[in-house]
């Protein structure tokens, strides 16, 4: 960490004559308060709850690992949510392929780069909730929805019903991809511009042009960026909730789509906790999810700066 070496001690602290400076603690106090109350205590609280049957009304009783055992061995709903979540995670590389291709495309354009970048980024700059409302409108009325008709007009099968249990999950994944590939494109576009032109000039001498140059020069150069975007994208897709809730509620009339077809892990946590008041069981599911996310996050920390993408 180069940066740490630069952030040397501040001599001023010594000059005040006190052994322990007070002011830094004053600066940290508001953040620490917020951190302790809403982050630190909750982690332990939540972990404790996951071993109880707390339901908000009757006092909590210790139940050992029963919640974990129930989720892992007796709940088909939990595994259904896991399967649906895996769908979202698996779709991440596909979305990133779109972002990367768009970045290549944009950087290759002789003019109009700014205009196209703006259009491609627009859905991501708008409110994600509003986009959900819009998608819900476009698929409501089932097989007679606007989207079904438009897709039929451009050559797809007639009467696709995105509000049915068969296509709801696929639709939410694709609409999210269509709405959300802008930031990835901007990151890659900057990364591609950062690739030293000399590498290409040198590559040309060795016959690396076109796709070959892409494969042997560009991709290795942006490898870290690529890994970082893939891993943070996967972490994000583990936590998918909003789009399922908005499109489900408004488009299909059921919170997470018909017949639990859009139930993933976070919706399951939300439903167990706040519809059935099974706080202990919901906490156990949250910690099962955490264990997987931790692995991915450690990878992300290795490949990127961490940063806001991992915070709230």
């Amino acid at each position, binding site marked *: 960490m180069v940066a740490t070496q630069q952030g040397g001690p501040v001599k001023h602290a010594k000059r005040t004559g006190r052994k322990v400076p007070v002011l830094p603690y004053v600066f940290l106090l508001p953040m620490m308060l917020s951190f302790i109350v809403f982050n630190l205590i909750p982690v332990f609280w939540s972990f404790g709850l996951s071993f109880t049957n707390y339901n908000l009304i009757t006092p909590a009783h210790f139940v050992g690992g029963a919640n974990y055992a129930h989720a892992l061995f007796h709940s088909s709903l939990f595994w259904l949510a896991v399967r649906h979540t895996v769908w979202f995670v698996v779709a991440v590389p596909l979305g990133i392929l779109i972002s990367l291709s768009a970045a290549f495309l944009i950087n290759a354009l002789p003019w*109009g780069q700014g205009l196209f970048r703006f259009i491609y980024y627009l859905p991501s700059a708008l409110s994600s909730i509003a986009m959900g409302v819009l998608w819900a409108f476009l698929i409501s009325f089932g097989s007679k929805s606007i989207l079904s008709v438009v897709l039929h007009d451009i050559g797809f099968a007639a009467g696709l019903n995105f509000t049915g249990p068969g296509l709801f999950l696929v639709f939410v994944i694709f609409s999210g991809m269509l709405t959300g590939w802008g930031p990835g494109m901007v990151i890659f576009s900057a990364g591609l511009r950062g690739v030293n032109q000399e590498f290409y000039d040198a590559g040309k001498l060795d016959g690396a042009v076109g796709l070959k140059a892409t494969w042997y020069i560009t991709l290795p150069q942006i490898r870290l960026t690529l890994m970082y975007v893939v891993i943070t994208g996967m972490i994000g897709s583990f936590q998918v909730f909003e789009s399922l809730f908005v499109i489900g509620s408004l488009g299909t009339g059921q919170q997470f789509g018909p017949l639990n077809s859009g139930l993933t892990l976070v919706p399951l946590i939300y439903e167990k906790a706040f519809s059935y008041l099974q706080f202990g069981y919901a906490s156990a599911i*949250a910690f099962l999810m955490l264990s997987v996310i931790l692995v991915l996050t450690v990878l992300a920390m290795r490949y990127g*700066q961490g940063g806001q993408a991992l915070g709230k």
Partner: protein
Amino acid sequence: MANNVDSLRSSRLQANGQQEAAIRRRQNQRRKVFGRSVRYFWLYVIAILLACITAFPLVWLLITIFKPTYEIYQYPPTLFAKIYTLSNLRYVLSGTFLQPFFNTVYITVVTSILQVLVNGLAGYALAKHRFPGRTLIFYLFLSSMMIPFQIYLIPDFLIIKHLGLLDTRTSLIISWIGSAGSVFLIRQYMLGLPDSTLEAARLDGASEWRTFFQVVVPMATPVLGVVAIFSFFSQWNNLLMPLILIHSQSRYTLPLFLVFSPSSNPGQNMAAAFVTSIPPLIVFLLLQRYFSQGIALTGTGEQG
């Protein structure tokens, strides 16, 4: 981990690179050959196609706002209408919509200001002060960034309940102020600020607080701008917290309002969705400069 000054410097170098690229492009154009223009033609065909796919839902949204209800419900649906009306726009000027709108504006603006202030001070202390426990606190923040927000959901609800703040706008603000990610970002940036400037301010007799507000804040504007944008976006679109903390319709935020109190007229809903999108768009356009720097700060940092 990348030094942020370096990354800014390299973005300036990139700008030079862009100029060179532009010169190169111009040279290319001069010796334009037939094959090249054919290739460009296909590139633009793909680019325009992609733009159409991206813009299609947004265009449909915009036109729907100006359609009368019976035109929206007609089957098969058509993009353009025979008659256009402004009546759906009246809905977003009614109290029904303005109440959640101003609730959201209030919560989002206060959260963003407090986030910048609270996390900025913390980041400054961690970057430019030496005190017992500094490393411990830093690693505490760092490791908390690995924990997904959903872990906090249930205890946060219980804490807000115990504080007697359920169903208040304050609950949404205080649960969203501290962000370890923001502190980390600010600290990393502030490490790169020159100690000599801070020392000079102190020698001139400025208090620590004055040094922070008049020297550190102006120098750290890019990173504070990034934190402001991110907290604005995340709070404006915050659905999960209001979902568990807010019950009264009078305290609904826009996400709650859009999901739980939709109008029976889709045109009005599209108008509401459109107006909901405008503030994030304005913030994005105004602070776009910081935003692209933010992507440089968060996304493309090389590993150290």
